[in-house]
């Protein structure tokens, strides 16, 4: 066991991937000497050289577009998008090319490209640095979308993502980058497309991913003091979605609250609510409720504590669920 921050766990995972496979490349703005603005790629260029850890020009479409070309040549690029709100200049390459080229080739082409996106708020940043754009990508067939929430998962998930032959949008919870935990560097971890029940409970299921998993665990601990037994499911993979874990959990607890930072309206929680309702209709004691951001752009940082779901808003939703 080694104690690592989430950022360092990603760094270790990337390092292992690069050691294991000489075709793995890291590319993006400032990923080389600086080690990325969050230092996730710290030291990699020093050890693997400028041809494998590529500092790119400042243009997101160019990063993804050239990564596609490199993948077509047999490389496995891991692209860093510096902040969530900056992925949109690359959205065309991701949506019209990266996601669809394997299908276009009737399977002849594989595009093992990982797009790493530090996501979410809570760090007091300026506009476009705190967003949760996952729904844009979960809506795009051909992409896999995953979100890590803790150092151990970050370590194995990034390696699994690099090994996967499909393009992957890899969300990293930026306000959890500095959270520390024990990581078993030899353990294989859960498969990339599996959800995990991170806390067992009997009365209600909280469904979260990325930065909100920790918030939900805190809420669950607080609820226990009030005598409520709260289960927490960390989705890990948003596309594909592990409905087996969700169905089993909600069938047992009879209540479900989905928590994410993105706006609730047509957010990823809507998909969970619809699917859980379809699967667990006769077990549900209350409608599936959602807690998330408002139908506003991400606010200036002095207001972000109001925008971001916190322990109290999650507990309030749990109370509302029990009120039915």
């Amino acid at each position, binding site marked *: 066991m080694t104690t690592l921050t989430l950022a360092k766990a990603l760094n270790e995972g990337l390092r292992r991937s690069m050691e294991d496979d000489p075709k793995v490349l890291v590319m993006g703005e400032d990923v080389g000497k600086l080690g990325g603005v969050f230092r996730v790629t710290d030291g990699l260029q020093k050890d693997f050289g400028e041809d494998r850890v590529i500092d790119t*020009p400042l243009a997101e479409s160019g990063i993804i577009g050239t990564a596609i*070309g490199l993948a077509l*040549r047999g490389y496995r690029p891991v692209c860093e998008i510096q902040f969530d709100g900056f992925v949109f200049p690359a959205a*065309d390459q991701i949506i019209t090319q990266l996601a669809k080229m394997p299908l276009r080739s009737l399977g*002849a082409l594989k595009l093992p490209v990982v797009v790493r996106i530090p996501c979410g708020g809570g760090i007091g940043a300026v506009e476009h640095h705190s967003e949760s754009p996952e729904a844009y990508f979960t809506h795009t067939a051909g992409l896999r979308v995953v979100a890590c929430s803790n150092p151990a998962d970050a370590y194995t998930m990034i390696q699994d993502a690099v090994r*996967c032959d499909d393009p992957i949008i890899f969300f990293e919870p930026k306000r959890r980058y500095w959270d520390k935990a024990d990581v078993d560097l030899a353990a294989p971890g859960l498969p990339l497309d599996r959800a995990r029940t991170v806390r067992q409970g009997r009365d209600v299921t909280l469904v979260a991913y990325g930065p909100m998993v920790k918030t939900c665990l805190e809420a669950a601990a607080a609820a226990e003091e009030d005598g409520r037994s709260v289960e927490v499911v960390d989705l890990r993979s948003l596309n594909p979605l592990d*409905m087996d874990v969700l169905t089993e959990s909600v069938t047992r607890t009879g209540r479900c609250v989905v928590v994410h930072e993105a706006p609730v309206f047509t957010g990823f929680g809507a998909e969970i609510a619809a699917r859980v309702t379809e699967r667990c209709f006769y077990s549900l004691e209350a409608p599936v409720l959602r807690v998330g951001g408002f139908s506003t752009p991400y606010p200036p940082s002095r207001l972000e504590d109001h925008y971001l779901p916190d322990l109290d808003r999650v507990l309030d939703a749990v109370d509302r669920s029990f009120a039915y």
Partner: protein
Amino acid sequence: MTADAPRGVDAPPELVQLLTPEGERIEHPDYDIELTAEEVRSLYRDLVLVRRIDLEAVALQRQGELGIWASLLGQEAAQIGSGRALTDADMAFPTYREHGVAWCRDVDPVKLLGLFRGVSNGGWDPAEHNFHLYTIVIGSQALHAVGYAMGVQRDGAEAATIVYFGDGATSQGDVNESFIWASVFNAPVVFFCQNNQWAISEPLEKQSKIPLYKRASGFGFPGIRVDGNDVFACLAVTRRALQNAREGQGPTLIEAFTYRMGAHTTSDDPTRYRLADELEAWKLKDPIERVKAYLFKNQLADQEFFEKIDAEADALGKDVRSRCLALPDPPPGAIFDHVYAGAHALLDEEREQYLTYLAGFER
């Protein structure tokens, strides 16, 4: 070009030309090329055959057999000249109009028609031909080509990459980003812009205030303008640019100055935006007629040769037509195939549900 003259009547002075519209061979100090009689006859054959494939495809669209077709009429020399400059190891990234380049890369024309007929969104294996899939979003493939070239560079391979796009694409961010990437990484890539003067109804003046080949200098690599209706010049200029790329001299932008004789696609009506005299002026620059004139004048081919090629074109047209009509619709389950390389639970569930639903009608 004078203000009153139709577009293209006055050829730009910097144009690299090796064969005049009248079929006269001319010398160029930097870009001359030695071609045997057999090679010229072979180029002529390619030009005629791809024009025939194109005409057959337009006819098939008019008869409702293709949803749409993007004609290459008028651009045969740009495509055959550049396409024949490629070695087997070079990789080509096309738009959706590079039927002539596809021909040079031995892609079955029926596969191209299949895309426009709607049986697939691509359909050939790019690695098998070193000819990438058609890209419909304008300019996206320029970045793919540069990335691929960066891979070639890392592999230490003796190969170059060529990417095709039109004049309209030069306005796209991706094309400009690809210029930057190619330049700063010294990528072995050739940008082959077929300036056919029109981006659907938008004339070149809506894309650029300077000649397109001059854009390259702002990015730090050479740009060259070639007579896009001159197959010799296109071959010579592209061959040189590819060789420079392979030798580590980085990218080149080639602007093939040509003209789209047909519509942008069969859905378009060029009579709404361009004048007939422009078309008439460009007819005199036809890429096929000038090679024919050259072959005749120099007694490198006789009437029998031309009749033989025409007969071959007729047979090819018939073959393409019959095989296009025989293309089967894919089975419904094909919707779900190849979306992901690995297993995907949601897709597997949807496939099973839909096929079960369909099977219900068979009982």
